[in-house]
């Protein structure tokens, strides 16, 4: 089966600083993958390479079989990216923004209206969807960009810190939404610092540290690797311990 995301031997550095070192990672269709790591570990750089914003100095990134950088537009038509600081046109209403996104991805108007009505109900956006986005709180913005990202039913959803600023009800709803998508064969690639969420919803977890993938697998495999039966938080802290050597932790491929 063709991988949804296929990262092979990717290396990226900014000047002297190595951001991502020889990263190899494959995420399958229908998988919810949680990407963890301390600040500055290389998570955002990896995500930006998956989305085609940055280009690796070595290696390749494929999304749904399309090599990013060679056939980037075809890949971008099948991916959606929600950054931690979402972008919105502040002088558009939420509805106008959704119409714009739908037109950009060539979603026909009937499907668009049906999907907007669905998100309106599920994400409880009635009160603010027709107001200018400049007046939105962070949580409202998160809901709107999530709806916009899902409008074209992307094969791969890449999302950075999805739960920040959301109320508990919406967090629950977003978790359900992620599970629905993976059941439908879509892929969710999620970067987060909220380890409880990763522990609760992820099929597999990857931990990056100093640009290297130091752990990869489901929770049971990570526990085995860290030789502990404790929580993901304990595993994470053990694997990203600044006093431990990095090379010892690099995941074997």
């Amino acid at each position, binding site marked *: 089966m063709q991988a949804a995301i296929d990262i092979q031997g990717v290396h990226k550095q900014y000047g002297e600083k190595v951001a991502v070192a020889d990263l190899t990672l494959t995420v399958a269709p229908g998988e919810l993958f949680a990407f963890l790591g301390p600040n500055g570990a290389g998570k955002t750089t990896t995500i930006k390479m998956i989305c085609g914003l940055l280009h690796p100095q070595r290696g390749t990134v494929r999304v749904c079989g399309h090599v990013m*950088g060679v056939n980037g537009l075809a890949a971008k*038509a099948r991916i959606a990216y929600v950054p931690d600081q979402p972008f919105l046109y502040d002088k558009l209403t939420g509805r106008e923004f959704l119409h714009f996104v739908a037109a950009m991805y060539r979603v026909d108007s009937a499907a668009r209206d049906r999907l907007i009505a669905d998100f309106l109900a599920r994400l409880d956006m009635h009160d603010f969807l027709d107001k200018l986005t400049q007046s939105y709180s962070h949580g409202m913005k998160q809901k709107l960009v999530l709806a916009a990202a899902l409008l074209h039913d992307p094969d791969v959803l890449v999302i950075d810190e999805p739960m920040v600023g959301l109320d508990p009800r919406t967090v629950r709803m977003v978790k359900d939404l992620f599970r629905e998508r993976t059941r439908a064969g879509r892929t969710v690639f999620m970067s987060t610092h909220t380890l409880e969420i990763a522990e609760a919803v992820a099929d597999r977890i990857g931990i990056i540290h100093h640009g290297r993938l130091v752990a990869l697998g489901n929770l049971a495999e990570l526990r085995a690797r860290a030789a502990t039966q404790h929580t993901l938080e304990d595993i994470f802290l053990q694997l990203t311990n600044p006093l431990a050597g990095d090379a010892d932790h690099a995941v074997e491929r």
Partner: protein
Amino acid sequence: MPSSVDAAAPPLAGLSLLVRVKLRALCNRVSSAIAEAPVRFFATALCMALVWLGLYFLFRAIFIYLKQSPLEAAVAIPMVFSFFFVALLAMLTISNAILAYVSLFLGSEASYLLTAPVSPRAYVSLKYLETLVFSSWSLVLLGLPLMLAMAEISNEPWFYYPLFLAFFLGFVPIPGALGLVIAWATARFLNRALRRRLTLAAGVVGTFCVVLFVQSVQVNEQEPNLWLNEVLFRLNFIQSAVLPSAWVSRGVQHALQNNIDDALGYLMVTIANALFLSMIAVEFVSARLPVAFDRAASLRGGDARPTRSPAGGPAGWVFFYLPLRMRLIAVKDLRTFCRDPLQWTQLVILFGLMGLYLVNVPRFSNSLAPLEGWGMIIPYLNFGAISFILATFTSRFVFPLVSLEGHQMWLIGMVPLTPRRLVAAKFAFAMTVSVSVAVSTTVLAAIMLKMPLGWAVMQISVMTAVCAGLCGLAVGIGARLPMFGERNAARIANGLGGTVNLIASVTLVLAMLGGMGAIGVRNVHRGFDGPVDGVSLLIASLVACGGLTAGGVAMLLGARHLRRLEI
């Protein structure tokens, strides 16, 4: 492909969709500005109309003056046009390069659109169009009044107006295309350190060239014709046929002479080159955008800076007189100012131009000597220009200081520092920057005009009071009418409080100018001869006291408001 997506259509968002959404946002912006702040909206429109009319009458007066002598008009008017368009070419190229760099490579919209299936050509075309629209302010603000004034005094036929507009529209894409390629090259090849060094080197070389040119065309009072010939010879390059500005300049002049065929010929040359250059630039940059974006995004991190003591180093010495906590805040603001090119470059450019003019003041002296009272008029105009530049600076950069602290609420609400001291620390920073530029420019003006010591001390003292008044108003009103939820300093400055501050600052400057004008009128016959008389001294003291009082009262009100404020 997902079921809801139209699989038959190519998965690319085109330029028309992007333009439509931008126009929608623009309509929303205008309608919400009218609905939310109608007074501000119409006041801004009125101010722009007044500036526009002022420029129109200024150009009209210049052309009427030049027309009085047919010989001078024949030489000077083509030179005025050539100068205008060559300056426009240079300014638009630079402003387009900056705008294109910011919109193509910085900001979250760039990241957003580049992760969507938008073709690079559509994206670059959109950004190119945006920069052209933004940079066309010169057409509205400078070009229209210039051309309308020219047309009015020349009794031009009707076709002059659409032809002139077509020349402008055909001309603007040429610097736009150059700017687009410069922006791409900057992102692709120049890292932050190299960019800084090149900018510094360009500034030094540019200043050196200007000084060298000014020195080389010394006024020759005995042989004015020789001098004029020499100046025209040295400036002949601006009429070179390879410069796009020369095509527009010549075309407009042909239109003015009712020579429609030649005018249309130059128009066609301009439009053809504009279209060709635009196409080449957009195609070139589109094909190379991903690598340039990658380079720009990869180098965005910023350079490491040496750690300095929070209140130490040169910045700390400047505020040695302040208590430690106030000094910490003033030093922080000064470092922020020095590290924000938007702030210091504006001051450097405005006061640099002022300094350049002042250095050349002695050259005008001989020409102005026969006019009675010039000795009082020039310092008065200098004083007014410096004060208005300062009012612009304090309204744009000092006023938002307190509001911007709203995101570090501990500084306003938690740190053991009284609001009065916080306001005083902001004032100390603003006053330090303002006094260092405004007073040094006033001193330079006094030296260049060979002003006697007594008069110079009086001017410098009143200028210091202007600084105190404007800084006090900006800090005080900034604390009284803060906008704590906003991170964007420009939006804070454009808000209600910013508008109130701008009006108060302009009123204060006009009032102080009125006082200084009264001194000028009193002494118009005798000039600077003799010591400062008692009445002039009294007026100057009252003017200075007025400035200090206005600033002081505003700060007291601001501090009192902060004390009662619930954040």
